[in-house]
């Protein structure tokens, strides 16, 4: 079967496996992370048809033909795959970085989805959207600042 990931079709073998492991182990897209396997921590977040989902909680077969976006698919790239420009949310996290970075997929992709439906979220909306994702390094203050900055950057661009 095939999956549509970051704008490209990929042939995959293990449709019965959680999407997380198909992305990471079968396709080598290790920017999607394993943290708990039960849908709590948010490290495995991907965008499925634009909505953040826990990729540990859905099999590849259940995805069907809906498009998937992972951390690797956010930046603008040229024909050779070289990064031309970071996504505004990525740029905002460059300016407001987290520490170890393992949880970044959850925070970044959740923010991308938030800004798609609410280009100018207030602090409460940012906190509400980011709430389900853990960060053991304790960067919660920074995450709020990064998402607010991302909204600014997205409006400017």
């Amino acid at each position, binding site marked *: 079967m095939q999956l549509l990931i970051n704008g490209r079709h990929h042939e995959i073998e293990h449709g019965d496996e959680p999407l997380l492991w198909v992305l990471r182990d079968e396709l080598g897209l290790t920017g999607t*992370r394993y943290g708990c396997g039960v849908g709590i921590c948010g490290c495995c977040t991907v965008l499925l048809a634009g909505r953040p989902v826990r990729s540990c909680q859905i099999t590849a077969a259940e995805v069907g033909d809906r498009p998937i976006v992972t951390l*690797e698919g956010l930046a603008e790239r040229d024909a050779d795959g070289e990064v031309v420009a970071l996504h505004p949310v990525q740029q905002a996290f460059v300016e407001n970085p987290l520490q170890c970075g*393992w949880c970044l997929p959850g925070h970044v992709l959740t923010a991308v989805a938030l800004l798609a439906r609410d280009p100018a979220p207030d602090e409460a909306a940012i906190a509400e959207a980011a709430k389900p994702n853990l960060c053991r390094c304790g960067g*919660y203050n920074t995450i709020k600042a990064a998402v607010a900055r991302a909204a600014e950057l997205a409006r400017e661009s």
Partner: protein
Amino acid sequence: MSAAKADPSDPVGRPRRWRVTRRRLLIGAGATFGSLLVGAPIVVEYGRPTLVQWMLERGTGPTEIPESSLVWFELTRDGITLHVPKIEMGQGIHTALAQIAAEELRVQPSRLTVVQADTARGFPAATMFTFGSTSVASLYTPIREAAAAVRAMLALAAAGQLGVETQQLTAADGTFQVAGTDRRIAYPDVIAAHHGPWQEPEEQPALRPAGEFTSIGRSVPRVDIRAKLLGEATYGYDARLPGMGYGAFAVPPRFGAELQSAEPGDAAGMPGVQQVVIDVEAGFAGVVADTRTRAWAAARALKVDWSDGTRVDTGALERQVTAGDGVVLRRDGSIRDALSRGRIVEAEYRTPMAAHAHLEPLAALARVEPGAVGKVEVWVPTQSPESVLEDLHAALGEDREVVVHVTQLGGSFGRKGGQHLAVEAARLSAATGRPVHVGWTRDTDLRQAFYRPPTHTTMRGSIGSDGMIRGVEQRSAAGDIIWAVAGLPEPVRSLLGFDPGGLLGLFLPYDLPAYRLVNRREQLPVPTGPWRGLGLMPNTFALESFLDELAEAAGTDPLTYRLAHLRQAGEQQERLRTVLRTAAQMAGWSESLPAGRGRGIACSGDVGTVVAVVAEVDLSDGRLRVTGLDVAVDCGLVVNPAGAKLQAQGSVVMGLSSALREELRIHDGQVVSDNFDSYQILGMADTPPVRVNFVGGGEVPFGMGEPVVGPVPAAVANAVRAAGGPRLRSLPLRL
């Protein structure tokens, strides 16, 4: 970029022989043409100095000071690479080390590539062990000296190429300029044009005065963040090699259980299973499969028998850790006299076991070449490559060549210093002849860990008619931290009566006419070990809560009371006074709050850094909400304010998580809080604004990885009481 890619074809640019010059620089032998390698000599002069010295004297630490480099620079026409031993797990040290080097090289920090060294490239593994908040502090001067020497060597070469004296050259932004002219030459061009041996400067070049710093002290962007945001950084769980299989192995059901027998059982015939590997003597039964989930399932289907192990539960462990008799560690003045009069205040405090709960579970990739002495190569997220190296030699044979590559770490907080899966991955690779990756599930990661040990502290103090403390008797007890992971015979540990890790934060920093401290250490039937700050946070919870109880009994404001007992002229006391006053000022300490709200203050010192925290809480709706935290830190010189602030905020959130949530529970010899539903860590919803100010400054940096975690739970507990709530004496705090 500091990402350590799991790329076996990565050419090894290793300076194999070092020549020690009279100025103790190490210059890579053979590096005479078109490139320059310069390293700084090993200096073991920092980092919990007494502990290190103590261990060296007793032969429990590294047995020899390795004759190798702490850091080295590699300059080619393509750029400058800084090879560092110390490991990035989120602290931001690779960025800080690049800034320090860039300062003396006269380049922008972003022009440096920071590379995590591995055990094959000139570093003895002992210099790589990353612990105790020592990385930036210990490398600050060596890196500056080495970088200044590199610049001087480039200047000598450039002067020759331009036909001028070195004194005529000024260096800025990676380029030499002949003073008074527009003649310039960039470093890469100097290197490209150079032939023959590099000339060394006659003297150690002067280091730039702090007042002229352009890189140190600035919040430059993190060197590793871009790769992490693009999904390109390689963590241990991400390490891959062509043709690799996925491994898993049976783990004991209870602490202390040992493998008695093992057979493939149903595992051999399960889908995707390629091999079952059993070595009962080594206590190992594992599988290799074509996917990770199939490997996990097959490992669970192995037919294994375990010995019983311990049946202990949390209650029994806490009863074992009971303060009382022990070893007297402090005896100042006459405590008997002090406690015979005055107003007596007594209290006891407990902290529970806790997990590190780093979000990247343990993982390792191994490739073992065929034959009894085939080379072993592993990619591991570890704080302690030397223990990985030793374990691999012990398990697979001393004659093997072993290389440990350190990946990025998805958090660690102490855990990845003493535990890793390299041996298991290597056993499976050796048996199957292919690379094998092993990654633990979250529940296995939480069940098979070592943990912050429980503590119990009883305090008894006396207050004179003037309200001042007459004396304090402190009895502390804790499970082992260092002894639990360092090999030293139990009789020796018993004789000493204390665990070095348990000493952190153990001593009251205040002026006390009489102070008696009796300590007790316990070897527990479950694994315990280092957790961020070791004893610092549990001990500070007890001491700084008790200071508030004394202040309350004396009818004095807790800040005033602390300052009144920090009157000695010593530097440490002065620095504590400064951080206490600063945090109080930040929080508006003297402004009154509505009913149901309150502020609490606490302070502590560790690895040269002192910290004060003011917490503000709101109990008005009947539950405990922390509404803000103000933090004042004196960590000496701050290399990267933004990075240091993240360390401080992160430490506060981790401390708050322990204050409000974390409690590792054990039943029937098993961890029962084994995922984030039952082992809850703090989330965004419960994290208030954390404001941080750095005060003090100075010539050199002190530690920033751990100290700020110290005062947080005590500050919150003190705030609860100030808000009209009960005095809470055990963690997590519950109304």
